[in-house]
């Protein structure tokens, strides 16, 4: 369970998050939607202890990230970029992460296989395509076989096959009782993947509920999204 309680974040004079609260529950895929710059990444970074909230709390199973004993076994995260040094090979990157979690090299081979990177594992990360880099990020998130996954724009840069793979994979994770929180601005993809939807705009939550609840009277999630986030809400339907 992921719980955001009244998160506020200031950077300089700017208020990036103005008191946002929502939950991501086990057994469900929660989609975190919003236009670019709405505060999606900031929220996820605070949740992962990378940035500090000005006030409020972001908890993982009731604890802050810094309180987790073995974070990789609790929560797997893939944020912007590959999160890897470009001169290292994909396999070497996953191996140091495995060391940090006390996992064996055979687990590294397992996740390489899961994300379909086995053949590219000895290539330097700098030579990876965007899609391969995203798969590497997913592999790192999956290493500790965590019950919670936090993914920032996971389908960005993936080819159609990769997108379908992610969708099926995340559905399976949720069905076996895991918590999945993913941010995206791609409505079509999200509508087919998520159970719950949280929409953020200018650092405020404008909708929070099941997919059906958020779509409401609109014909698609996309239309609901634009109705909720457009500067002239109500005019564009």
């Amino acid at each position, binding site marked *: 369970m992921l719980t955001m309680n009244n998160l506020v974040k200031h*950077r300089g004079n700017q208020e990036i998050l103005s008191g946002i609260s929502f939950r991501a529950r086990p057994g469900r895929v929660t989609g975190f939607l919003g236009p670019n710059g709405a505060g999606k*990444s*900031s929220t996820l*970074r605070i949740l*992962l*202890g*990378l*940035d*500090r909230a000005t006030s409020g709390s972001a908890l993982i199973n009731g604890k802050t*990230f*810094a*309180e*987790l*004993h073995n*974070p*990789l076994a609790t*929560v797997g*995260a893939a*944020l*912007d*970029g*590959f*999160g*890897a*040094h*470009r*001169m*290292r*090979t994909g396999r*070497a*990157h996953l*191996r*140091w*992460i495995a*060391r*940090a*979690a*006390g996992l064996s090299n055979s687990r590294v081979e397992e996740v390489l296989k899961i994300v379909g990177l086995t053949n590219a594992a000895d290539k330097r990360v*700098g030579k*990876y395509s*965007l899609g391969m*880099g995203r798969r590497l990020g997913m592999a*790192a998130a999956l290493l500790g076989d965590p019950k919670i996954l936090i993914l920032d724009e996971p389908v*960005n840069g993936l080819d159609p096959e990769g997108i379908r793979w992610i969708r099926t994979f995340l559905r399976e994770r949720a069905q076996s009782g895991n918590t999945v929180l993913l941010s995206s601005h791609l409505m079509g993809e999200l509508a087919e993947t998520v159970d719950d939807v949280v929409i953020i705009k200018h650092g405020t939550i404008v909708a929070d509920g099941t997919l059906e609840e958020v779509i409401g009277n609109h014909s698609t999630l996309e239309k609901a999204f634009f109705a909720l986030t457009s500067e002239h809400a109500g005019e564009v339907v």
Partner: protein
Amino acid sequence: MRAFNAELSKLFSLPGIWLAFLIGAFAPAVITALDSIVQKEEIIAGVSTRLSEVGYIGLALGVQGVIILGVLAVSSEYLTESSESGGGAQITTSLTAVASRLHFLLAKAGAVTVISILLCIVAIMTTVSTTYLILGEYTPAFEWSRLIGAVCYWTFTALLALGITLLTKNGIIPLAVLMINSSVVSFSVLLYKVTKLALYLPDRAGLEMFMFTSDTPFTGSLFDRFHNPFTGGLIMFTWVVVIFIIAAIVFHRRDVAA
């Protein structure tokens, strides 16, 4: 311990580190070889005034290897990926793999310390062998206490490089400043022309752990003994601790996105 293993694994899988190993292991021997060849005649004639520095001069100037090590250990975390890939950096992965930033930092410092010690031991072996090869029976005896001093000097230098890079996040400035300072133009030599406080700068004080061993009283020359080896080491260690604490506080408070 896991975080420490992860840091070792990171360092050994970084190609740039092999350059640090290569320089660290052989640069002192090369400098020593050149110095010994130049001095050989004077040493054999028994008129060399720098007999006590034979070999150690290489260890003093050849500290570049561990500077690269200390800088790379941190700068590799902050190296930004191409904008095409989303402009992330490894630090996000590191801090989601180890929850406590202090643990992360201690693990990194621990890995750099262990590698510096080992690298200095290798450098001592290559340097001492080179000296024997060139000077043969005229080689002055190497004292254990001074060699241990050299190991401390290397380790402290690496930790200073690590701490400073943690503050700058970028490796270029600390790398340039520290490497030039330890080889071409020493900041403490320049500052010494202005004030004697320069003798308390980390590099100058640290060198007293194994250099400037002549027993002549302090004449005002920068190359005379001013501190005893223990005090010199203590001064340098204090610098390491202070810079490390500042870096740790800044690092602890800093948003990764900032």
